[in-house]
């Protein structure tokens, strides 16, 4: 029992987080910046931060993750990190030749009062930023929000810096993606193509963090949203933000700066959220929904019908980031499952109301919590009180799954012990099919392995 230390009684904790269901802002900023073509993320802080974030992303994607650091020393913590960042900008453009340096701050640089705007402007004034190259910056102190807000802040920085309003509207929409996998970004683009909606997807980590093996190391792989694409976002007809936590800030920025109206909807996970996404796309792009999309929906529905008896009433525990788990929980309820325990380390006041809206009628017994102390320890205590049939979340759930012998489906960030997330999307109707397949396999594998001999079934 790896988690033999988890007590069954839930005690109030205020000062302590045990086994966090989140991590800090800068890693989100780094991930978002990797979804822009030719962009080198830069961590303005101690060396360890950059190293940890790169390792975390490398473990999840099994891809090289490039990012630079200001390499703070004791001197920088006293005198400020300006000299480090100025030198860094010069070094990076000379040696690594990115199009863009996307600087994010850390708890250290924020607390000592470094003003990124001022330092970046100084770098420009001193001619340290070559012509046609860019430095942008986002404030991402680790003691605020979570990895999700770091991602949101970096997206905002990109549109703030690049989106331009001319007087010519372009018949395209902006699609701001929440934190999803490269496979999901690819799927979003496929759906857009099927719908014949011209769009700019920001960020886009496909072809960056799922690159083919070629025998060459590419510092800047071919994927990522390009600068001209980002510039054109200011002239788009509309913005669709997928995920309130990750995309609201950038959507508002585009509205304020370029008067592009926006809608924030859920990431298209499962049936209803994908319905809303497709409808929003049809409306924003002024297109009708093609037969091929309707057929995909029908296939998902068909499988759910076929397998309903194995899904019905199953108690599920879910943890992860709000944008991703809100539509997932809705999907589980739609399939007649019972998501009974839900935690998310990311703070945000709408979480409770969204959960209540989805759960109060169909799963009134559900317990949910987000923000500080909404951690894996609490989740485990709930499960010990009253077990579940299925656990869904990132790799860190494997301790609980093993100790409590619960079928476990990996979704979220990070997944460091299985593959697939980079290549097989869980978005849209087709992605929904994959989710159903994964849930069923986990549940039915356990049934096959543990049921009584006389109950063992060939046909299921």
């Amino acid at each position, binding site marked *: 029992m790896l988690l033999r*230390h988890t007590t069954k009684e839930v005690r109030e904790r205020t000062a302590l987080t045990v086994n*966090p269901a989140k991590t800090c802002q800068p890693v989100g900023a780094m991930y978002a910046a990797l979804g822009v073509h030719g962009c080198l993320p830069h961590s303005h802080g101690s060396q360890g931060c950059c190293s940890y974030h790169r390792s975390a992303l490398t473990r999840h994607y099994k891809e090289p993750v490039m990012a630079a650091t200001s390499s703070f020393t004791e001197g920088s913590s006293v005198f400020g990190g300006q000299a480090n960042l100025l*030198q860094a900008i010069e070094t990076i453009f000379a040696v690594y030749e990115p199009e863009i340096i996307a600087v994010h701050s850390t708890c250290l640089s924020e607390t000592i009062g470094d003003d990124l705007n001022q330092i970046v402007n100084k770098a420009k004034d001193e001619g340290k930023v070559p012509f046609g190259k860019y430095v942008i910056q986002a404030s991402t102190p680790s003691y605020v929000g979570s990895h999700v807000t770091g991602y949101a802040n970096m997206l905002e920085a990109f549109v703030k810096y690049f989106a331009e309003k001319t007087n010519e509207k372009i018949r395209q929409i902006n699609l701001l993606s929440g934190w999803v996998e490269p496979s999901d970004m690819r799927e979003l683009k496929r759906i857009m193509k099927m719908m014949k909606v011209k769009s700019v997807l920001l960020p886009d980590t496909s072809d960056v963090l799922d690159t083919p*093996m070629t025998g060459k190391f590419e510092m800047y792989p071919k994927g990522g949203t390009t600068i001209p694409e980002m510039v054109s976002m200011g002239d788009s007809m509309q913005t669709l933000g997928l995920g309130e936590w990750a995309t609201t800030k950038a959507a508002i920025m585009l509205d304020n700066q370029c008067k592009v109206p926006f809608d924030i909807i859920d990431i298209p996970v499962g049936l209803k959220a994908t319905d809303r996404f497709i409808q929003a796309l049809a409306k924003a792009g002024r297109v009708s929904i093609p037969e091929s999309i309707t057929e995909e929906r029908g296939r998902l529905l068909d499988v759910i019908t076929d397998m309903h008896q194995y899904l019905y009433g199953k108690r599920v525990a879910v943890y992860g980031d709000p944008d991703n788990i809100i539509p997932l929980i809705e999907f589980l309820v739609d399939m007649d499952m019972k998501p009974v325990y839900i935690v998310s380390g990311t703070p945000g006041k709408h979480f409770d109301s969204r959960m209540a809206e989805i759960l109060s009628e169909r799963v009134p017994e559900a317990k949910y919590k987000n923000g500080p102390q909404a951690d894996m320890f609490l989740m485990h205590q709930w499960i010990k009180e009253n077990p579940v049939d299925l656990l869904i979340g990132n790799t860190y759930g494997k301790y609980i799954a093993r100790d409590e012998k619960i079928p476990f489906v990996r979704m979220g960030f990070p997944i460091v012990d299985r593959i697939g997330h980079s290549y097989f999307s869980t978005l849209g109707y087709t992605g929904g099919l994959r989710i159903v397949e994964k849930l069923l396999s986990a549940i039915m594998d356990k049934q096959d392995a543990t049921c009584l001999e006389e109950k063992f079934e060939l046909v299921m």
Partner: protein
Amino acid sequence: MNEMLKGRKSQIVTKGHDDVAIACGKASIAGSVSQRACVFCGSRVVLYPIADALHLIHGPVGCAAYTWDIRGSLSSGPQLHRLSFTTDLKEKEVVFGGETRLYNALISLIDQYKPKAAFVYATCIVGVIGDDMEAVCRRVTREKGIDVIPLMSEGFNGTKKDGYKIACAALSKLIGTDQTSVVPEHSINILGDFNLAGELWMLAEYYRRMGVNMVACMTGDGRINDIRKAHKAQLNVVQCSGSMTYLAKDMEDKYGIPFMKVSYFGIEDMSDALYEVARFFKSDEMMQKARELVREELSKLLPALQEYRAKLEGKKAAIYVGGAFKAISLVKALRLLGMKTVVVGSQTGNQDDYNLLKELCDEGTIIVDDSNPNELSEFVKQTGANLFIGGVKERPIAFKLGLGFCDHNHERKEALAGYEGMLNFAKEVHASVCSPVWKFMK
């Protein structure tokens, strides 16, 4: 890459071409894509394997999240070290201080888990907001009656090596606090083994077969009560010299315990590690037993290695690891497999290590300190390496380049130390270098 990082030149030498000594121990240049980590990381990885202690990270959530169970240090008993505890500091504490939060967290953790001791790690921000962590730890020590040891390991306060030093100082506070236990004759401490994939258990068994008793390992499969009596050993055997030499020197000063540096990688170094201990105790019987052990192990190992050597003969390797001392053993171990080292570097090597490497390597070998992905991939291309040995961040780069890879860092899955480890190493290198997948690369 059209330009090498300015100021990096002195940290790269090619044997046979450059006669200058390599520069090392320098802070990384701002703006480099360095593979290095920070002070906190150094302290955290060194103490992490102590399984019955509480490890609390005082800071915002990230530093705890990224170091949650990432090191494959096995414990034969408690698993408390594999949990992640953090004070999860927020804006409020950054403004008003986090001392109360730290105090409350410690009290509730100690009440709940009853650890044998507690380590509290300072992260960057603690150094800046001015929490008096030492005072809080003193207070909790008084109130709870267990040692609560603060580590002033703010990330910016030097390099990873400074983190090792801080961890050693923390261990030093525990050592000597058990005056009553008696240890047998011929007792040693093993320093700098972290029981990755159970390596320590193998080593301790070798020593046991020679009649040598282990008092404490610092810190693999570590226990607080063993560390308290570590001063009763007659000898400290130090591996991974980068992290534990500070402690060995400290124990020599305080308790007069001599130390020897060893390495457990490869046949020669492993055998020397046994012989040297027997020599130290001036026991013919022990030496006899060590020889028998080596003979017995080699009689199993050498024939088994042949199969791999035959396939690997003449292949070339690039090495980039944390400590340079490890790199030295790797060069020798690769040689035993018939492989030549063409690039070798480390994050934290010192002058002595690099001199040794230079002596050991063949003409033309590139030796590098604090490298980055561009340089490494450039060197690999230049030298035509077939294998890369490194850690988590280097693995996908090596694979993209079409090279075999062996993880010689925290994420190793098989024991690589000792005689069995040598065979595992050969198997791993062979599996990766001779994988059929490389044939499909265009």
